[in-house]
């Protein structure tokens, strides 16, 4: 006979507010946010610059480092994002474009002329946005893989992660990638599913941190997938 059931409600904590919480927690938190932004957003911004009319503005790495150093030293910059409805990646790319324009203006004031191409770019900086989105999606996947890998290792699931990578990235059949770990193909498929849940969590965490909420995150991920077609 069944015992009366006890109600047990427990839901996984969301990381959607991670950036906001870290920004509110002082200097160390701000450093964590800067590190996160560099890891997830620097490469997409670099790809954007390389493909845009701003490519003549200088070395992309220098511009991006200068942009992050300049903007993130101001508390109000990220506060602006917090009070906006914008996705973080959109906020950053707009910020980068403004930063480059500011640099141009300073350059112009010092008497250095701008090329025609650069002048035109200042009026139409929206090109290459698709390339930026594609690069951001790839950056999210790479970062999520790194996070999931660390988590699997920490949880003693290193073999699970190895099988996941071999099967889903290197396209090896389970019958092949299971050999090194002394398991059969069916068990390898299960181990890969376990690692996949860590990867899934990491992707959703990163997309949440960009500003998507529970109601929009699936739509957001679907949009990114469309962008990759």
């Amino acid at each position: 006979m069944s015992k009366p059931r006890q109600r047990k409600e427990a839901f996984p904590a969301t990381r959607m507010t991670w950036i906001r919480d870290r920004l509110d927690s002082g200097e160390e938190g701000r450093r964590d946010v800067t590190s996160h932004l560099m890891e997830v957003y620097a490469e997409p911004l670099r790809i954007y610059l390389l493909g845009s009319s701003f490519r003549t503005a200088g070395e992309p790495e220098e511009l991006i480092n200068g942009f992050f150093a300049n903007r993130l030293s101001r508390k109000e910059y990220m506060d602006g994002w917090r009070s906006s409805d914008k996705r973080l990646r959109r906020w950053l790319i707009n910020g980068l474009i403004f930063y480059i324009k500011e640099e141009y203006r300073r350059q112009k004031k010092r008497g250095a002329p701008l090329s025609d191409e650069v002048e035109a770019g200042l009026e139409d900086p929206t090109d290459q946005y698709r390339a930026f989105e594609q690069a951001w999606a790839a950056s999210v996947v790479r970062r999520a893989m790194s996070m999931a890998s660390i988590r699997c290792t920490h949880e003693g699931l290193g073999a699970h992660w190895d099988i996941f990578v071999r099967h889903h990235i290197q396209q090896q059949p389970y019958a092949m990638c299971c050999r090194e770990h002394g398991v059969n193909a069916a068990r390898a498929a299960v181990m890969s599913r376990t690692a996949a849940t860590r990867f899934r969590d990491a992707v959703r965490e990163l997309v949440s941190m960009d500003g998507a909420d529970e109601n929009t995150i699936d739509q957001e991920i679907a949009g990114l997938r469309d962008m990759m077609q």
Partner: protein
Amino acid sequence: MNETYPSMAGQPAPNDQLDAKTVSRLLGMATSPPAHPADALAIKLADPEGREWAMRALSSPPIEHLSSDDLLESPTDLELLRQLHQHGKRMFHDSSSSSEQHEGMLWYLVAIALAFGDHEVMLSSQPQKEVVEAVLVVADTLPSPWCDRLETVDR
């Protein structure tokens, strides 16, 4: 011919392996809901709070005369496992909250794993391969000794 592949354990894939198609496919793995209820449960248990929730649930089996220690000590009484299986199935189907559905799925899989591991009796009418996989996906997310106990389904 046997191809050899370098191990990538602990390492993200090199950038050149992440073409647009691969990125899209991997992103597709992150959309919800998961295809299988066992995967949904495994996702919940992958989180530390979810694991605590599972430990609390497992410490108090919903069947009279069946304790947590009984479940952990082989062999567990088959009749009690049959009751646990039925209870889990009912709870999964009748509950409206996802938390109770998860709990129902947990008991359902625990009962199946132990009945098969201890008595070689398959309580589920679902294809054995699928059921065993579902048990193992959940076992992977549980700490010892529950993980080891559930894995007996595959021995």
